[in-house]
């Protein structure tokens, strides 16, 4: 009976569009859903540092190098806020990392694609961060307070990321024929994976039901995907890039672009571990974690000694 009262109170908060805070009672499934989603989001930020970090040493100007370093730091910072948001749900960062390493927790499949040329840094900022923003803007209104507040802060930085990515692409499209070819090639390789970032079609989305009811998720995969396509196609045309979709067309009636069929087989295959970089990204994270173990142990041992000497 007591739980029923609590559930009613919880639902009334959700209905009133109030935030749920860490101290509030929440159904176990709500907590589980959030831990899964926030940790996946945090891990994505952190694993996402790898494809871009791959280009820090080769950035073609000092300005570009500074921007890339700053951007990657932002991503790491987002990872930190999100790990903290997840920790408010009663799980530690160590546990979250353990789940990542064991494969229990996922990260966005987009980061299992390789960053092959400098134009990929443009494409990642413009398309990948561009897709992420559409999702994150809607999550600013998510029902869990710490997650919503993290999103507000993250969105401000992500829009800078998207602009810097677009600037790289625009610049290359005004450059030499080789640069233009590089930019188009990056567009061709990143467009479809970026569309897949929104997840399966609404008719086939396994986690959406409760998430929509509890207002964790504020808009469906297909609606968000459509928003992204509508704004991005125009940006591509403006700088002379071709969207690699022969079925793409403007629908005058709906005022939306219609797109071709997404290759869901590829989507599933990459999620299941068979993308070009799944193994490499995970191994790199695990290796760094193991190689850093002696440092973490030393820091803990030192802190303990300091505490003891303060007490004495």
């Amino acid at each position, binding site marked *: 009976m007591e739980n029923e009262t609590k559930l009613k109170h919880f639902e009334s908060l959700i209905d009133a569009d109030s935030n749920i805070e860490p101290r509030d009672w929440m159904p176990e499934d709500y907590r589980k859903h959030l831990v899964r989603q926030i940790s996946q989001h945090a891990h994505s930020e*952190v694993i996402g*540092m*790898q494809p871009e*970090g791959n280009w*820090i*040493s*080769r950035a*073609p*100007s*000092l*300005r*570009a*190098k*500074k921007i890339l*370093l*700053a951007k*990657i*730091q932002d991503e*790491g*910072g987002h*990872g*930190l806020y999100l*790990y903290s948001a997840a920790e408010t749900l009663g799980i530690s960062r160590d546990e979250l990392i353990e789940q990542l390493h064991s494969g229990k927790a996922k990260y966005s499949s987009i980061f299992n694609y390789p960053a092959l040329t*400098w134009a990929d840094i443009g494409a990642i900022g413009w398309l990948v961060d561009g897709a992420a923003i559409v999702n994150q803007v809607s999550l600013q209104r998510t029902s869990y307070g710490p997650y919503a507040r993290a999103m507000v802060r993250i969105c401000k930085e992500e829009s800078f990321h998207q602009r810097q990515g677009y600037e790289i692409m625009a*610049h*290359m499209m005004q*450059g*030499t024929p*080789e*640069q233009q070819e590089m930019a188009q090639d990056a567009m061709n390789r990143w467009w479809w994976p970026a569309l897949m970032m929104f997840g399966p079609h609404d008719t086939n989305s396994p986690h959406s039901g409760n998430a929509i009811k509890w207002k964790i998720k504020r808009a469906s995969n297909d609606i968000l995907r459509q928003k992204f396509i509508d704004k991005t196609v125009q940006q591509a045309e403006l700088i002379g890039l071709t969207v690699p979709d022969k079925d793409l067309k403007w629908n005058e009636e709906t005022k939306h672009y219609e797109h071709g069929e997404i290759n869901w087989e590829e989507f599933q295959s990459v999620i299941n571990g068979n993308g070009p970089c799944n193994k490499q990204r995970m191994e*790199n*994270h695990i290796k*760094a974690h193991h*190689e*850093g*173990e*002696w*440092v*973490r*142990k*030393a*820091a803990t*041992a*030192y802190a303990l*000694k300091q505490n003891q000497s303060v007490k004495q």
Partner: protein
Amino acid sequence: MRLQQNEVLFLYTLRLADDALILGHRLGEWCSKAPILEEDLALTNIALDMIGRAEAILRYAAEVEGKGHTEDDLAYKRPERKFYNHLLVEQENGDFAHTIARQLFISTFEYHLYTALLKSSDENIAGIAAKAIKEIKYHKKHASDWCIRLGDGTEESKERMQTALNDLWMYTGELFEMDDINEWLHEGGIAADLRKLEGPWKTDIVDVLAQAKLTVPSSGYMQTGSRKGIHTEKLGYILAEMQYLQRAYPTAKW
């Protein structure tokens, strides 16, 4: 061959800039490899400070040179033998202890160098120093704190930290070498007298190592060469990677 005043100043600014550029490159290699996420951010943040400083100094260097080059031309189109960074900063990251030892040595040196350069009669250099010194204070503190933590942490961390200090010690003598360029610019009130920095540098290092319960490496043979653009074999690989796009597509703008 007698160098002109602006050629002397040009070479001096390259020395300052190249330390920042090459160390920034090395620190950037830590991205996604650090022991904890916070440290990943700290190391790449120091890298960002370094690249920013390199950019500012190279911009001034290009102006002093007067040949219409940009800061990017100087970073991306100079060959190995015309780089003048200290050998210390091009050394590989190694384990975390080696990176900390390298940072402790260079940031403590930079702290005293840039404090002196605040009073440079060259207002561009003094201006760059005024911005840099704020960052350097943080870099020095970060490296000192970690050195103490690792030295006084576990047996393993103590051993690793001591090994790193011993390995890199031979690259510290060069920091205080004065050649004609330093002498001339010091006389003109532009550059610092490096001989006067060695004492305070050593005092700081001895103090940190005492807190870390580590041993100051015994002075032995010191490596040298960077004043003349003679480097370790590692620099060539750094430049090959850093300069690749600019060299592969010489007509492209990025």
